[in-house]
Structure formats: structure tokens, C-alpha cells
């Protein structure tokens, strides 16, 4: 298991390749990558991500351990950035490795659903002088109930 909470950018492709190279006997790899979307108005200047140092790593580890206990996974990678990001920058990624594709897919979806609503990150959109904390969506909370 590899969990990183960091300010600096990372390279999705390089991380995907490094994760794949570490596996043996795993037939299925799934990655999810979250990218800063511009606002509907096309005027996003920055997305600022705040987190709770200390709790963040623990919360992600708890979520990852729960995924390992529910599915037959060979490995998990989670990288999540904080700080100032711009449109089209990579915010975060998860990767799962498994012998079978259903485990890899479900493990990754489970990680994403819980990272979304149970890891202490908060996003703020800044466009010009306007700043808006991104509101949690009911559908994200609802997504947890399927697991």
C-alpha cells in the first residue's frame, strides 16, 4: 500500500507504470484520476485544496484497509494533492491491482467514494475575486450506502 498526500504535482503515466511494475501475478489494474475542471463559466483561476494534516493520511489508510478487507486486491496506491491547482491539473489518483478485474474495479470505486466524503479535504474555487467552497453533494453521501 502506498499513500501520499502532497502539494507537488505528479505524473499520472509515470505513477501508473511504476505501480504496474511493482505487481506480480496481477492480471488487472485500474486507475482513477481526478482532474481540476474549469467552471461552467470558463473562468476558474485556481482551485485551492485544504486538508487536515495528520488526520488525512490516517483516514486514507483506514479507507484503503477497508478496501483490502473487502476485495482480493494485490496492492493499492493513493496520491492526493493539496494547495493551489489550476484547470486541467491532476488532483489525485488511485490505483488498484488484482487478479480479477471485478475486484480491481470495485476496489477503486470504493476508494473513490470514501475519499470523496470521508477523507478530510476541502476544495475552494477561486475565479477573479469570487471564492466558493465546493459544496458536498447529496449524491456523494448516497454513494456510500451501496457498499
Amino acid at each position: 500500500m502506498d499513500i501520499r498526500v502532497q502539494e507537488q504535482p505528479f505524473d499520472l503515466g509515470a505513477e501508473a507504470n511504476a505501480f504496474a511494475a511493482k505487481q506480480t501475478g496481477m492480471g488487472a489494474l485500474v486507475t482513477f484520476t481526478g482532474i481540476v475542471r474549469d467552471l461552467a463559466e470558463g473562468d476558474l483561476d485556481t482551485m485551492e485544496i485544504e486538508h487536515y494534516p495528520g488526520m488525512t493520511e490516517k483516514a486514507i489508510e483506514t479507507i484503503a484497509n477497508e478496501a483490502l478487507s473487502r476485495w482480493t486486491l494485490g496492492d493499492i496506491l493513493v496520491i492526493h494533492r493539496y494547495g493551489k491547482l489550476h484547470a486541467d491539473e491532476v488532483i489525485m489518483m488511485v490505483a488498484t491491482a488484482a487478479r480479477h478485474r471485478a475486484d480491481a474495479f470495485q476496489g477503486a470505486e470504493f476508494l473513490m467514494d470514501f475519499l470523496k466524503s470521508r477523507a478530510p479535504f476541502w476544495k475552494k474555487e477561486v475565479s477573479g475575486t469570487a471564492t466558493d467552497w465546493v459544496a458536498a453533494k447529496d449524491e456523494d453521501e448516497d454513494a456510500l450506502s451501496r457498499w
Partner: protein
Amino acid sequence: MDVLYFAWVRERVGRPKDKLETDAETVRDLVNELREKEERYAAAFADLDALRVAVDQELTDFDAPLKNAREVAFFPPMTGG
């Protein structure tokens, strides 16, 4: 006890952290104590449904006991991922 604030809770309170001596038995007692402290705390804690709380870095609820707690954090629903 360290009391931490994140996101718009931090902005409303106007600082990221308080160090408090408190006899509050539960998170809810602590919230009531803070609300009476100053108007900006009352504003930050106006609607508990819009808030989440962690005690010693574990998510919990407003009825959680504070006995032996070293760190309490208040924040809006999380928006990671």
C-alpha cells in the same frame, strides 16, 4: 485542548486553531460554550447539520464524549477526490 477549524468554519471563526481549557463533556457542550464566546463562533456554529466533527482525528458525532480528548476539529462535509 486544541480546537481546529477547517475550510469556511476556519474563515468564519477567523483563525485555524484555539487552545482551550474546557469542562465540556461532549462535543455538543463544547459547541455551546464556543457559541457563547463570541459572535463569530455563533456564526460558524449556527447550523450543526452543515458541520462535521473529528475527535483526536477520528470522525465522530456531536454526542461524542470529550474525556481525555486532546484535539477536536470542526469542518464542513468533506469534498476530496
